[in-house]
C-alpha cells in the first residue's frame, strides 16, 4: 500500500499485541455510520501520476508573454530560493512548538520579521498571515480593536479583489464600511477627508495603488490621526527598494502581499501575507510572533512569544483565529531578500520602473492609445485607454501569445476601454516592442485608431 511501512505480518503481530482484531479498530463507529465502498479510482504509482499531471500541465498556457500584474507579479526567482526552502528540515516541520527542535524556523522567522520592518519602516511584524487580502482584513480588525471604533474608510484605488474580500468578512459584523468612488487615479484627499469622522477607526490605502500610481500619504496620516483614526497602508514590497516606506509617511499598520519576494505565481497561491505595526500596538497584533531570548546557558535563542493573544490560549477572545500561517513562504521571502540584498532590491525596483516608463512611452505613441489618468508618477504599472473595449482587444492578443494586461471594466465602472499593464524586470525591450506592434495591429480598423 502506498506510503505504508508496516507489512501484513507486522500488522498481524501488532493487532495480536494490542488484543484487537482488524474489525475491532473501528468498532466504535456504529455500523450505520460506516460508508459503503467508496467510488474512488484505483491508486496510481509515481510514474503514472507524473504522466497524468504533466498532461494536465500542458493544458495550461503559462508561457504567454505576460503583462498581467494587479498585485501578483512575474518576478525573477534566484535558484537558491527554492533550493534552500525545499530542504526537508524546513518543509516537513510544523509550527515551532518545541523551540529546541525549531531554531531554524524560529530564527528564519525572526529574520523575516526584521526584514519586513526594515522594508516598511515599521517597528514590529508578525511571522506571516495567509495572503495580502487576509492581511488587510486582519489589519482592519486590529485597527478597530485599538481604536474601539467601527467605521472603516477604504479607497477605491485599493486592490478591488481585496476590497471584495473585506466586504465578505464584514457582512456579519457591525462594521460600517465606506468606500470612495470615482477619483482621478491618485487618492482623492477631498473624498477621503469627507468620509473620515469621529467613528472612523481605520483608513485603508495602497501604495503604489491598484492603478500603479505612487503617492505619499503623510497628509492623510495626519488628518486621520487628528481624528483618532489609524492609517493602514497596503504595499508592494518590491517597490520599497526604491520608494518611501509607509512607516515614514506615518502609517500605523502596514500590510501586503509578499508573493513578489521569491514566490511563483502558482495560480493564486500559496502566497504570503505580511503585517507590520508600531511597538505600542503589538499586543493587538494577530498571528505568530517570534522573539529573541536566551536559553538556560544564556545562549541566544528564539521562541514564539506573546502567545496569550492567540487562539490556542485565548480561544474566543483571541486577536485572530489564525493557526497555520505561511511560514515556508516567509522563509522563501527572507531568503530572496537576503540574496537580493540592499543593492539588489533597489536595482530590481529601478529596473521595473525603467521598463514601465519605456513601455508607457512606447505604447502611448500608438495612435488611439491614451493614458487614462493625469497622475504622472507610477511604479511598474499604468492604465491606458484603448479606442474600444479593452477586454475585446486583450482577447484578440491572446492569439498572438500575449497576456497584454488586465481589463479594468471588471472592477471599475466607466473604465470599459481601460487596460492595466504591468512590467517586471523579466520583460524585455523586445517583448515590449512585440506587445506594441501586436496592439497596433489589433487596433487597426477600429474607429479611433489613427485619428490622432
Amino acid at each position: 500500500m502506498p506510503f505504508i511501512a508496516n507489512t501484513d505480518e507486522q500488522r498481524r503481530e501488532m493487532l495480536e499485541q494490542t488484543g484487537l482484531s482488524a474489525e475491532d479498530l473501528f468498532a466504535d463507529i456504529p455500523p450505520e455510520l460506516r460508508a459503503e465502498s467508496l467510488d474512488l479510482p484505483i491508486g496510481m504509482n509515481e510514474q503514472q501520476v507524473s504522466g497524468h499531471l504533466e498532461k494536465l500541465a500542458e493544458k495550461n498556457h503559462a508561457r504567454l508573454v505576460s503583462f498581467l500584474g494587479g498585485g501578483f507579479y512575474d518576478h525573477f526567482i534566484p535558484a537558491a530560493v527554492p533550493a534552500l526552502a525545499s530542504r526537508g528540515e524546513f518543509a516537513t516541520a510544523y509550527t515551532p512548538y518545541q523551540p529546541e527542535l525549531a531554531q531554524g524556523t524560529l530564527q528564519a522567522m525572526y529574520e523575516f520579521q526584521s526584514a519586513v520592518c526594515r522594508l516598511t519602516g515599521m517597528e514590529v511584524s508578525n511571522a506571516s498571515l495567509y495572503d495580502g487580502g487576509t492581511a488587510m482584513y486582519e489589519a482592519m480588525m486590529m485597527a478597530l480593536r485599538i481604536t474601539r471604533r467601527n467605521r472603516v474608510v477604504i479607497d477605491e484605488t485599493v486592490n478591488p479583489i481585496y476590497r471584495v474580500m473585506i466586504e465578505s468578512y464584514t457582512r456579519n459584523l457591525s462594521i460600517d464600511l465606506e468606500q470612495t468612488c470615482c477619483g482621478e487615479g491618485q487618492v482623492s484627499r477631498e473624498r477621503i477627508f469627507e468620509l473620515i469622522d469621529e467613528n472612523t477607526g481605520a483608513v485603508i490605502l495602497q501604495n503604489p495603488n491598484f492603478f500603479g500610481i505612487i503617492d505619499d500619504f503623510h497628509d492623510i496620516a495626519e488628518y486621520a490621526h487628528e481624528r483618532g483614526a489609524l492609517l493602514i497602508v497596503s504595499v508592494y514590497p518590491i517597490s520599497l527598494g526604491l520608494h518611501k516606506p509607509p512607516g515614514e509617511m506615518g502609517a500605523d499598520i502596514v500590510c501586503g502581499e509578499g508573493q513578489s519576494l521569491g514566490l511563483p505565481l502558482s495560480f493564486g497561491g500559496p502566497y504570503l501575507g505580511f503585517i507590520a505595526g508600531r511597538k505600542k500596538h503589538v499586543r493587538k497584533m494577530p498571528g505568530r510572533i517570534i522573539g529573541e531570548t536566551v536559553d538556560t546557558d544564556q545562549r541566544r535563542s528564539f521562541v514564539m512569544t506573546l502567545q496569550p493573544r492567540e487562539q490556542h490560549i485565548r480561544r474566543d477572545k483571541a486577536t485572530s483565529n489564525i493557526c497555520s500561517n505561511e511560514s515556508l513562504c516567509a522563509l522563501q521571502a527572507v531568503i530572496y531578500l537576503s540574496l537580493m540584498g540592499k543593492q539588489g532590491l533597489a536595482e530590481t525596483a529601478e529596473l521595473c520602473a525603467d521598463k514601465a516608463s519605456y513601455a508607457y512611452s512606447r505604447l502611448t505613441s500608438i495612435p488611439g492609445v491614451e493614458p487614462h489618468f493625469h497622475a504622472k508618477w507610477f511604479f511598474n504599472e499604468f492604465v491606458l485607454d484603448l479606442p474600444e473595449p479593452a477586454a475585446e482587444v486583450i482577447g484578440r492578443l491572446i492569439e498572438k501569445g500575449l497576456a497584454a494586461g488586465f481589463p479594468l471594466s471588471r472592477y471599475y465602472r466607466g473604465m470599459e476601454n481601460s487596460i492595466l499593464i504591468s512590467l517586471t524586470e523579466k520583460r524585455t525591450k523586445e517583448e515590449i516592442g512585440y506587445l506594441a506592434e501586436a496592439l497596433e495591429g489589433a487596433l487597426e480598423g477600429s474607429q479611433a485608431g489613427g485619428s490622432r
Partner: protein
Amino acid sequence: MSGGGMNEAKLIFEKSVEGRRATQKTPSDVGHSVNLNPDYLREAPPELPELSELDVVRHFTELSTRNFGVDTGFYPLGSCTMKYNPKVTERIAALPDFAGLHPLLPQLRLGGMLTQGALEVIWRTDLLLRELTGMAGFTMQPLAGAHGELTGIMIMAAYHRDRGNSKTTVLVPDSAHGTNPASAAIAGYDVVSVPSDENGLMDLDALREQVDDRTAGVMLTSPNTLGLFNPRVKEICDLIHSVDGIAYYDGANMNAIVGRARPGDFGFDIVHLNLHKTFATPHGGGGPGSGPVGVVEGLLPFLPVSLVVKREDGTLALEYDRPKSIGYIAPFYGNFGIVLRAYVYLLMLGRDGFLGVSENAVLNANYLRTKLKDVYRQAYDRLCKHEFVISPSKAMEEKGIRAVDIAKALIDRGFHPPTVYFPTIVRESMMIEPVETESKETLDDFAEAMLEIARLAKEQPEVLTGAPRSTSVRRPDETKAAKELNIASL
C-alpha cells in the same frame, strides 16, 4: 555570563559585509527611467544584508540543521497528522505550466481556456473530496484549517440570514481546538462551551440544555482531540437540526476515518479538511496549508465565488454569478499549489490506499497506546482512533516530572515530542498521533524511549528536568522573551 560560545547563533544581518553581493545587476535594455519623483523615493535603500550567494546558502543550510521535520524523524505531534510528504508532489508543483500560471488569466476573455489543466486539478479534487466526505460540493479557497472554519461559519450565517433566522450562538465542545471558538467569535457569534462527559465525549445532556432557538450551529470534530469517536454523533446533528441549526465538522482529524466513514453520513452540513494533514502536503514549518470547505446540497448557493463548474461542452469554467454566495474569502482559487499536491496524493492512494491510511493510523495509535498504558496515566482507557492522550503517572508527578520534561527528554532520544498541554481538559496532557506512514520499528523505539523516560523519572528525575542536552539551545526563556520583547532587529 557565558554568552558567546562558538555556536552562538548569528543573524543574517550580522553577517553582512558592506559592498558584498549575491546577485549581479541586470543591465537595462530600455535605458533609464525618467519617471521618478524624488519626493516619493526613500532616502536610503532598505537595510538588507549584503552577502555572497554562498554566505546565504550556508546561513540557511546551517539553520536547517537546527530544525526537525518529518524527514528527520518520528514526529507524533497530536492533532497535526505529521505523515510523510511524498517528494513527487514537489516536482509536480514546480512544473512551469503550474508554477508560472498567473491567477488573473481566467478573468481574461476566454481565459478559462488557457488554464484548463489547473481548473481540472481543482474540479477533480473537488469530486474526490465529495466522495470521501459525503458533501455535495467544495470550495478550495480557504487557505488553512482555521480559514476553512471561518468560511464555514460565514456560510452558516448566510444560511440563517437567508432563512430570516436570528441566531446568535455557536456551540463548541470544551475539548475543541482553539481555532473553533476563535473562528465562531470573529465571525460574530457568541461562543457557548459544551462540557465533556466522563468518557471524554460531548455531554449530550448538557448539550440538550444548551441548544435553543438562538443556536446557529455546533462545531465538532470526531474523533475529537482526545482521539475518541463519538458514536452518538448523529444524535448531536439531529438535535442541532431540530432548531434549524447547522452541524459543522472540523475535519482536522479525518485521517482516523478516511475511506471508511463520512461526516456527511453522520449528519454534518459543513466540513473543512486540512489538506496539510490528511492529504500529506508539507506543513512548511507552520504553513502554507489549505482548508477546503464542503457543504451539503442546500448550502451550495452560499459557497464563495468563484467555483469551478463543468460546462455542457465538457470544458471547465469559473462561475462568478452566485447571488447568495458569501463572496470572496481569498483572492483566487485558494492555495492552488497545495491543492495540486493533495490531488497527486489522492490519486496515488486510490480507494484501497485510503482504507490503508485509516487502518494503519488507528492500528499504530492503539499499538503505541497499549505499550504505554501501564506506565503513563491514560486519559481514557479504551479504543482510540488516530491519536490518544496520556499524562505523567502519579509516581512521576511526585518526583516533580511534568509533561514538558518528558517532551524534552524525548528530544535527546531523537524524537519530536507529542503535542503537550493540549487538550486542556486533561492535566499535563501529551497527545500522541503516530500516523500511518510510521513503521512498527519506529513505534517500538519510541515506546522504548518513553518507558526509559518513565524509569528515569522515578530513579533520576534530574536527568529529565535537565533535558534536552543534545540541541543547540535548551529550554529558552519564554518569560524573558515576552517581557523584553525583541521581535525584530532594526
